[in-house]
């Protein structure tokens, strides 16, 4: 039996701003985790990661991050990803301020 694959999104930092971004199903980069494409198949996820990595003039350091699906879209499973999609906790800066 194959192990259950934890759903994932592709995330990276934008080349110019360094801001956290996610790969959407239409191949655009979105700044919101909730708009990211959720990958539920391991082989497909690896393929999408290769595609993301090849776009090196747009992004830096693409990787797969675990998520859990919810009615409003994917949610982080780890606090690091929670901070990445929010911004720092000492100032109202970063993503939380742009919403």
């Amino acid at each position, binding site marked *: 039996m194959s192990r259950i694959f934890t759903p994932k999104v592709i995330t990276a930092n934008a080349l110019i701003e*360094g801001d*956290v971004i996610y790969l959407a199903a239409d191949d655009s980069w979105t700044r919101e985790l909730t708009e990211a494409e959720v990958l539920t198949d391991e082989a497909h996820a690896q393929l999408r990661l290769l595609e993301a990595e090849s776009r090196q*003039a747009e992004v830096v350091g693409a990787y797969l991050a675990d998520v859990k699906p919810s009615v409003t879209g994917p949610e982080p499973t780890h606090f690091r990803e929670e901070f990445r999609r929010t911004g720092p906790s*000492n100032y109202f800066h*970063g*993503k939380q301020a742009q919403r």
Partner: protein
Amino acid sequence: MYQYSDFDAAFVASRNAQFRQQVERRIDGSLTEDEFRPLRLMNGLYLQLHAYMLRVAIPYGTLSSAQMRQLAYIAERFDKGYGHFTTRQNIQYNWPRLSDVPDILDALAEVQLHAIQTSGNTIRNVTADHFAGAAADEIADPRPVAELIRQWSTDHPEFQFLPRKFKIAVTGSPNDRAVTKAHDIGLRMVEQNGEPGFEVIVGGGLGRTPMIGKVIREFLPRAELLPYLEAIVSVWNLLGRRDNKYKARIKITVHEHGIDDIRARVEERFALLRTAFNGVDQQILAGIEAQFAAPDFRTAPTDAFDTAYAEDPVFRSWADTNLAPHRADGYAIVQVSLKAQGETPGDASADQMRLLADLAARYGHDELRISHEQNVILPHVHKSDLPAIHAELEAQRLATANIGLISDIIACPGMDYCALATARSIPIAQEIATRFDELKLEHDIGALKIKISGCINACGHHHVGHIGILGLDRAGVENYQITLGGDHTETAALGARTGRGFAADEVIPAIERLVYAYLDLRTDRSETFLETYRRLGADPFKAALYPEKQESRANAA
């Protein structure tokens, strides 16, 4: 203060021009990230969690008012209006855009600052006692030597691809405020039969394998410094473990080979190198020294100070806590706290930086220092000016009287910014400071150093905190490990782990229990936390930290 020579200015300008082109090539896609990363790191540019981060060197912690003003301008023009001063006497900007960085570097060059070798496997920004040139206990100003080391180490062709980063700290005082024993090389100025020289300490460091440095040479005559440093670095450059970056620092090399073996190799290499240095370095040093001549201290009455001290309790508390003895009569060293309770340790807004620059220009012989404890120093202030300075600091929330106290916390950026972090550190610092301020206990507790790191790399010096806090990720939850008994001074010691870690909401109560235990245990107010810990050992403090254990033991009995 040191002024760039034509050579320095041309060097920085050409590096900046090169980097501008490298950034352009990265943005147009002709450089990959793998190709670009080493280039950006050579220029102090990191990629963090939410944005890029630019680390700017403040050599030996010294700034002029013009430089501080420019740091404020950069914070406002290119960042979010503030900067973060670090334990390594750098300033970090947390939000620059890649496309702006070449302009930021040019703006820095205008005031003789740069970000070269603030990252990567090179000799990093040389740090020094933040009271340099002012301290009453000083043998000599360590900054001319630090500047000499900077000139020697910057772009040193043999040392651009070292096994790992390399950090040097210098102090001119027997009271070590530069944490020399936690550096790859620590230099302490000493005298032997009236001759000036250095005690050379090697192989200290924090991080995942913390080590207290060992003395490799008890007395090195001053003129032989550079060949000796070059001997140490070149011996390590060959021996250092390039196969494993966790074992690559010189502390591991010294540990694996033993200090005697390393000493013998260094002396052998030194014998060769010594003849290669033909005295030019000493001529250069003499030129540098002239630029660090002490300011013209004035002689004036201190009545204004004495009156304010007698009549204003807020001023008195600040003066008692934040001033340090100056070597000139009638002068004081002012430590400006960047730790107002609840604020982020080490952060200064552009307005605050500008005020500090103005105060330095008006009252402080144009000098400022950044301490490894993430505070700002006005090193040369006549006492009669202190009441005016205090009032202006108050207006910018810079008059917090807490230097050396429980809220004067060192904290690394942790998971609020740092890509390597395993937990946050800033909120823990904010909460501890706020809590003890509410309890109004801070002055009663007295000298107590809390230092917090957000991962094992120990940028927040937690190993040498009287109370150290290390943030970890335990199964996807932030967890904080406490160490006790660390010491960052000339009696340097590493703290010892107390036991299981604490969840984020348990840390503040745990620190409170520790502090109350200390207040109960101390002989009287004059015995500091560290002294009580040394007298009694860890047990009574562990009992306070883990009361549940005590209970279960009592029940079993």
